[in-house]
């Protein structure tokens, strides 16, 4: 799990300490972006939601209660910003837009997934170079196993049976060290994203 900030930092934020707030911003900037993305399903809105939410959080930092998780508090602010944006531009919402986006999900659930994704990103970045490459080609660039095998110059069967599972196991181990149990992170939601 992502390292939780020192309680003293959170208390300092609630007293209005700007330096403490800056420390939280540096620690959580990635999670905040993932939360906004997860909340809005609109990559083009992420920047604005994140920016406005951080500004409002900073302006209202004295109202933050340190016994509450900071990201959950921030997610609540993001949701307000997001709903305001929806009200301002209802025509931009397409048919594929989740009709209850921002309403049905709690800040806690949004934070949980964003933190998991941030941890996962960290684990991928810590992989050995070869493993990171095949993971990125497979999941970030959406290449087929055949294309990846060609790219890294190994037999496709070796990639499928040995290299890719080994890389995934390393990620699992890394996540376990962070206190994340993958099988419980998400309910089974098989999408059409797999090859």
């Amino acid at each position: 799990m992502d390292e939780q900030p020192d309680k003293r930092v959170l208390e300092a934020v609630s007293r209005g300490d700007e330096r403490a707030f800056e420390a939280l911003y540096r620690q959580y900037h990635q999670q905040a972006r993932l939360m906004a993305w997860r909340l809005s399903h609109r990559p083009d809105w992420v920047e604005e939601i994140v920016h406005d939410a951080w500004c409002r959080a900073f302006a209202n930092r004295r109202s933050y209660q340190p016994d509450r998780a900071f990201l959950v508090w921030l997610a609540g602010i993001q949701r307000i910003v997001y709903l305001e944006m929806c009200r301002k531009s209802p025509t931009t919402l397409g048919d594929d837009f989740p009709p209850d986006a921002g309403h049905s999900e709690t800040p806690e659930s949004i934070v949980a997934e964003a933190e998991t994704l941030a941890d996962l990103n960290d684990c991928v970045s810590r992989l050995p170079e070869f493993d990171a490459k095949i993971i990125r080609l497979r999941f970030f660039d959406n290449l087929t196993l055949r294309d990846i095998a060609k790219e890294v110059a190994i037999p496709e069967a070796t990639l499928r049976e040995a290299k890719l599972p080994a890389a995934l196991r390393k990620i699992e181990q890394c996540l376990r060290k962070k206190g994340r149990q993958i099988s419980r992170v998400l309910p089974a939601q098989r999408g059409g994203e797999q090859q």
Partner: protein
Amino acid sequence: MSQRTDNLELLLSKLGQASREGVLVSEAGRYPWRTVEPEVIPLTNRRFAWVRMVVPLAAAAAVAVLFVGPALWNPQAAQDLADNVHAGGSFAKPERPVETPQNVVQDAGVNCDYNNDGVVDGKDIQAWIDSRRGAEGDWTQEVEQFKRCLLGQ
């Protein structure tokens, strides 16, 4: 693959989508709540801003003392100096003799004798600074003028 790996793959696919859509950034960047930061001159700089003005003055005073000083104590030296001014590549007597400090006070049309001792010299620097301390505005012109007084130009 196992259910656990399936979930991991699902999460990796989401992460990949986030990456493709530009959501992941490595650097935190500047703080959003801060607007463009104004250029603030630190207090220490402001407090010692007068030093930037005094240094050229002191340099000018040193040059003045070097050239004018001997004339004050030894009129013959002043004459020698005037006779040996290097002008146009040859040593020739200048058309005008080197002015004495007393002349400078009158010729410049500006009273540079800030300490009122009848002579414009390095001793006027401190008096000049004292008279300008706390004053606002651009001193460049005044500094130039005072420098010219000290150099006897």
